[in-house]
């Protein structure tokens, strides 16, 4: 039974990573990029917890997962703030249109 739970979680990890990466590859909308990043990071976090469970190092896995949650929240907040600013100043959320720093 234990094994099947682990398999289930592993499938979920792969699914989350797959969805997140696909969205990052496909989307050009900045808000969707941030959502995709969130999905991706959730997958990574779940993978950490799973690895801790399988290796009998649950505490390390949990502390790592907590650290990731904090970092991930900051990324989301700053990303969304930037998105709001960009929308206000440039009138678009298309990441291909953000070329003012390119030469």
């Amino acid at each position, binding site marked *: 039974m234990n094994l099947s739970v682990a398999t289930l979680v592993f499938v979920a990890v792969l699914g989350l990573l797959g969805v997140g*990466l696909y969205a990052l590859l496909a989307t050009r909308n900045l808000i969707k990029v941030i959502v995709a990043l969130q999905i991706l990071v959730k997958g990574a976090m779940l993978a950490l917890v799973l690895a801790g469970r399988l290796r009998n190092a649950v505490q390390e896995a949990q502390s790592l997962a907590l650290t990731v949650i904090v970092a991930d929240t900051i990324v989301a907040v700053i990303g969304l703030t930037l998105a709001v600013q960009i929308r206000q100043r440039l009138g678009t959320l298309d990441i291909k249109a953000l070329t003012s720093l390119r030469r």
Partner: protein
Amino acid sequence: MTLILVAAMILLPWAGALFVWAAGNERPRLQNGLAVTFSVAAGICGLAMLPRAGAEVVLNFPVGGAFGDFTFVADGLGVFLAAVATVIGSLAVIFSVDYMKGEHQLGRYYAMVLFFIGAMVGLVLTSNLLLMFFFWEITALCSYALISFNNDDPKAVAGGMKALIITQLGGIGLLVGALVLYAYTGSYDIQALIANPAIVPAGVLAWMAFGGLAAAAAKSAQFPFQTWLPDAMEAPTPISALIHAATMVNAGVYLLARFYPAFHGVPGWTTAVTLVGLVTALLAALMALVANDLKRVLAYSTVSQLGYMVYAVGVGGIYASQFHLLSHSVFKALLFLSAGAVIHAVGTRDMRQMGGLGKQMPLTRAVFIIGSLALAGIPILNGFWSKELVLEAGLMHGPMWAYVGMLIGAGLTAFYTYRMVTMVFYGSPRSALHGHDAGPAMRVALIPLAFGALTTWLLAGPFSRLLSVESLPMHHIEPENTWVILEEVFSLPTLIALLVVALGLVCWWQRERLAGLGQALKGIGWAAEHSFGFEAVNRAIVGGTQKLGEALRVTQTGWLNWNVFGILAGLVVVLIVVILGGR
């Protein structure tokens, strides 16, 4: 006592650098005083250290981890080079008091000079290969900062960049050597490697040996890396003296001499070293023949003389190589500083505009001629004895073709030296230049060096004891009496060498009659003026790198989707490697 002296030789210049910098540029007199005090104190420590050379570890900082122990060993070779760096360095600092008068950024100047001297001492005294690499790179950075000291002059900045890039390229060889040594032995101890080179496998040792040769060639401006040294002439002249005589270029020859016991068994290594020395000595001598910039002639002569030292290492003459290094340090510092006095007085480096300056600057002329005679290898000056010892070692243990090549180089040296002296000091003035003789601080630096050029050959015996078995057990240098060593020079080959030198001088006197020959050799002259195509190669490499960078710009789209694709592709590659490696 030994411990205090070793620490003082490194830390005194470094402390001086901090104090000079803290003194501030608005107090130049204080800065001069501080720089001279600290460098002279370090020089005294360097001299006091000479009789205390020994093979044991005097200073050990156990840093731990991947850095190992930072150990310092004050053996003969290290102590000798440390003394050269501190003593010649302090003379260059004293000379700077006059030369740099009125300069607004003395703090930057002296701080870098003192930092440079301390790093050079550390480089030659440490026996930790990784630490040696650190000091090696500090000297490269200091030389860059000092060559580009006039940082509003694009030529000076370009010269500094060139020196930095080329010497860093060679530094990679040293870093690889250090890391390989650590990977196979678990420590960076140079002494252990020299005592028993078999601690690393033969193939790996070969990589280390040739990496070391590349590092040494880049540092000592040897073929094919010789192009940076002439461009480094944009530096203030005391810096040229410092780089050419006291620090920097000696490090390459030191590296070869230090590791000779470990590397000489590597197949092809000694031949490669001999060849590098020979080719450099000849090419640089030819380029010195056609250069018209006084400092460039001296720079090419340095490259050429370093070729003699490298050649001596290649044929196993470690003693001759280091003895020539001693002579060269003294007479080249003398030549550069007196050339600096000339340039300071007349305000140009172009020898075609000089001429007849001897009457206006009698003292400078006298010391310059002493240095030139030593460079040309005229008896009884120090350059004569050491160059003959190098040639002697080459004849006894080296291949004949290399010896003949070096003899031709000796003739060329005499020829270009004589050309330089007559163009600067004799004949009728070619333009309305007015010189004044060297100032008091310049004299303080010039006169001891001139005395040294006349007398350091008398130290042959003590010098052999310094490098003998007691402090360098693996180099097998026999301690001998001065007269026994110098007696070797009185032989038929020396006579031949002297005849070649005399031939060089006669060629200069009879240059009008030899005009036909000069026409015939015009092609060589043209090639030498264009540095035998090495500048073109350098430019091609720089241009190619820039083009490649521009071409790779297309991969930097800045599109998030594209970058994520790159990350995914990388992930797939890593996964494949892991799966394949897991089997």
